[in-house]
C-alpha cells in the first residue's frame, strides 16, 4: 500500500462493493433485455462484467470535492463509469432503449453515454481515439490550474493504436495530470492479446509500454478494487502534484463476449458465448475466470474481514436489484423521441 494514499475505511469498502453490484446488476438487465424484450436494444452493446472491481477501484481514487471534480473519458464499453459517478440509471437504461428520456436523448445509445455534469465527458466508439481526447481534457485541466485530474480508460487493443503512442508522448512531455488505465481483458474482440501485442508475446506486462514515454507503468490485479484503488490513487496523486501521467495496466477478464452478435435487421440479437469457448475451445480458461469473478471475491473478502455479514450482503443485493428493475420499467415506459428531433443538435 502506498503511504500517500488514504486507506479506504469500512464504509468505503462497502460502497465499493455496492457500486460493483450496481454495475453488474445494470448490465445483467441490459443482457436480459435481448431475450425478454427482443428488438428493444439495437446495434452493438458491450458489457463490462468482470471489470467492475477495476472500474470502481479506479473511480474511487477521484476527487469529487472540494473544487471542480476530476474528469473521465472511456470507450464504447461505457456503462459502468457513469453509474459510479452518479448518473441516473433510469436515464442510462432509457438511452440504451433509445428513448427520449435517455441520458443523451436517444442520440447516442449504449456506446456513447455522456454526462458532463458528473465529469463523464463522453466516449469514442473508435478504438484508441478517446486517448488523445482525454489527454486534451488533461491539457485543459493543467492550464485551468484547479487541481483536476483526468482518468482515461481504454482496452488492450487500443494500446496498439497510433493515437495511444501520440497521446502518451505529449502527456509525458507536458506533464499532464492524467492517468491512463489500460483495462487488459486479454482479448481484442476475438484476438488474444498474445497474438497482437509484442510485449504480451514476449511475456512482458503491457505496462512496459510506459517506458517508451518516460512515465511510470504499473500492472495491477484488476479483480481486486482495493489493489486497483491503491495503484490509481497513487497515480492520481502524482498527476495532481504536477509530476505527470502514469500508465496503469489493470488485468481483468471480460466475462461476456465482446458484444452481442453483429447481424442484419430481422435476426434476433443475443450475446454469444465468450470467445475462449466459442472460438478458442478453451472452456477451462473461461471457467477459471468465472471462479475468480470479482464480485463474489469482494463479498467473501468483506465477509471474512467482518465488514459485511450475510444478511447485510443480501440486503445490499436486494436494494440494487430493485434499483435496476425500476430502471428497466422506467425505460420501457418511456416514449421514443419524435422523428424530427433527428435534426436537432447537429450544430450548436
Amino acid at each position: 500500500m502506498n503511504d500517500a494514499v488514504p486507506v479506504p475505511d469500512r464504509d468505503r469498502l462497502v460502497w465499493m462493493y455496492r457500486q460493483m453490484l450496481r454495475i453488474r446488476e445494470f448490465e445483467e438487465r441490459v443482457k436480459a433485455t435481448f431475450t425478454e424484450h427482443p428488438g428493444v436494444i439495437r446495434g452493438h452493446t458491450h458489457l463490462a462484467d468482470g471489470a467492475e472491481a477495476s472500474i470502481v477501484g479506479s473511480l474511487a481514487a477521484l476527487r469529487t470535492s472540494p473544487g471542480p471534480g476530476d474528469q473521465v473519458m472511456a470507450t464504447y464499453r461505457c456503462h459502468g463509469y457513469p453509474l459510479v459517478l452518479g448518473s441516473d440509471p433510469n436515464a442510462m437504461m432509457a438511452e440504451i432503449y433509445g428513448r427520449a428520456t435517455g441520458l443523451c436523448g436517444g442520440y447516442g445509445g449504449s456506446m456513447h453515454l455522456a454526462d458532463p455534469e458528473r465529469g463523464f465527458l463522453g466516449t469514442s466508439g473508435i478504438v484508441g481515439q478517446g486517448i488523445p481526447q482525454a489527454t486534451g481534457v488533461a491539457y485543459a485541466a493543467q492550464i485551468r490550474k484547479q487541481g483536476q485530474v483526468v482518468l482515461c480508460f481504454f482496452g488492450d487493443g487500443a494500446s496498439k493504436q497510433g493515437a495511444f503512442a501520440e497521446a502518451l508522448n505529449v502527456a509525458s512531455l507536458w506533464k499532464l495530470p492524467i492517468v491512463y488505465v489500460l483495462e487488459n481483458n486479454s482479448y481484442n474482440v476475438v484476438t488474444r492479446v498474445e497474438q497482437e501485442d509484442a510485449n504480451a508475446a514476449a511475456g512482458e506486462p503491457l505496462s512496459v509500454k510506459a517506458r517508451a514515454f518516460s512515465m511510470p507503468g504499473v500492472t495491477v490485479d484488476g479483480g481486486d478494487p482495493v489493489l486497483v484503488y491503491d495503484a490509481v490513487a497513487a497515480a492520481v496523486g502524482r498527476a495532481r502534484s504536477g509530476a505527470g501521467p502514469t500508465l496503469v495496466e489493470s488485468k481483468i477478464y471480460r466475462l461476456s463476449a465482446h458484444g452481442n452478435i453483429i447481424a442484419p435487421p430481422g435476426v434476433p440479437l443475443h450475446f454469444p458465448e465468450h470467445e475462449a469457448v466459442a472460438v478458442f475451445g478453451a472452456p477451462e480458461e473461461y471457467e477459471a475466470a468465472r471462479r475468480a469473478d470479482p464480485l463474489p471475491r469482494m463479498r467473501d473478502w468483506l465477509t471474512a474481514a467482518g465488514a459485511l455479514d450475510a444478511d447485510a450482503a443480501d440486503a445490499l443485493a436486494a436494494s440494487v436489484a430493485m434499483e435496476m428493475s425500476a430502471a428497466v420499467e422506467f425505460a420501457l415506459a418511456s416514449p421514443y423521441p419524435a422523428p424530427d428531433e433527428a435534426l436537432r443538435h447537429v450544430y450548436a
Partner: protein
Amino acid sequence: MSRRLAYIAAINEAISQEMARDQSVLYFGQNIATTENDEFLKAFGGDRVRVTPISETAEIGMAVGAALAGYRPVVELYMAEFMLVAMDQVVNEAPRFRYMSGGRVTVPLVLKAGYGFTAGWAGQHTGSIYGMFTGVPGLKVALPATPADAKGLMATAIRDDNPVCFFHHYLLTLEEGEVPEGEYLVPFGQADVRRAGDDVTIVATGAMVGRALAAADALAASGVAAEVIDPRTLVPLDMATILDSVRKTGRLVLVDQATRHASAAAVIAAEVADQGFGYLKAPVKLVTALDATVPYSKPMEEYILPDEEKIAAAVRAVIR
C-alpha cells in the same frame, strides 16, 4: 479604418485579437512557438500557445478534449493533407460528440489548414480536399479568398461553437488587400457577390475567385456581363444568393480547384438542378481540376488546373 495587409497576416491578426478577447482561445501545432521570440508566445504565454510533436491525431484529438473541457483551440496544421493522418478525429470524432450526447457537450475548435499549393509541390501537398469535409454533418467549412475575409472568417470560426475547418489558400498567402482594423467578423453562410452582371453567374472559391474575376474582365470587353459569387463558406452554403443570381442570369459556370467529383462545384450544380432547374437557359458548366494527382512539372500542373481561358471558354459555351 482599414489598411492593406497580407492574407496570412490577416489570419494571424484574427487569431491574435480573438486570443486577446477570450482567455479560452488556445493556439497549438507543429513548429510554432519554439523560441521566446514567437509573437503569440510573448503575447499569450506558454499555457495557451504550444508547439506539438508531429502527431496530428494527438493534436486534433487533444483539441477535441480541450474543447469538451471548455476551451477554444485553434490547431495549426499547415497543410490540409496533414489532416488526412488524423481523419478519424476530424470526421468521426469532433463533429459527432455534440450530436451523440444529445447536445450535452460542445466542441468549439478550428482546424487551420492550407490547401491548393500548386506551385511545384507535386502530388501530396497540393490538393483541394475540402470536398471530403463538406458532407459531414456537424463540421463547418470556411474558404477565404481575400485578406479581409481571411480575418473575418477566422474570427467567426473561433467564436463558433462547432468544429470548423478553416482552409486558407497557399497561393494567396502574400496577396495584399484592404483589411479592417480591430474587431471584424464575416458571418458564415453569407456569399459575397464580387462582381455584378446579368448574363451569366460564375461561382468560384479561394484562388479561383481571382481567376474568375479576371475572366469576367476579359468577357466584359466582348460585351458579356458576368456575375461572380464567392460563397466564402461551403458549410453553411448560401444557396439563396446563388439561386437569386441564376434566376437573373439563367446561366451558371462553377469554378473549382478540386477534381470534379470531389468539388464544391458538383454539390452546387446538384442544388441548382434540384432547386433552380426552371431558371436555367443552358446546361450548368463545371470548370474544375482535371482528374489527376497534381503533377510536379509546371506545364502539366498548369494543364490540369482551371484558368482564365478555360473559365471564359465555359462562359462562351453557355452564352451561345
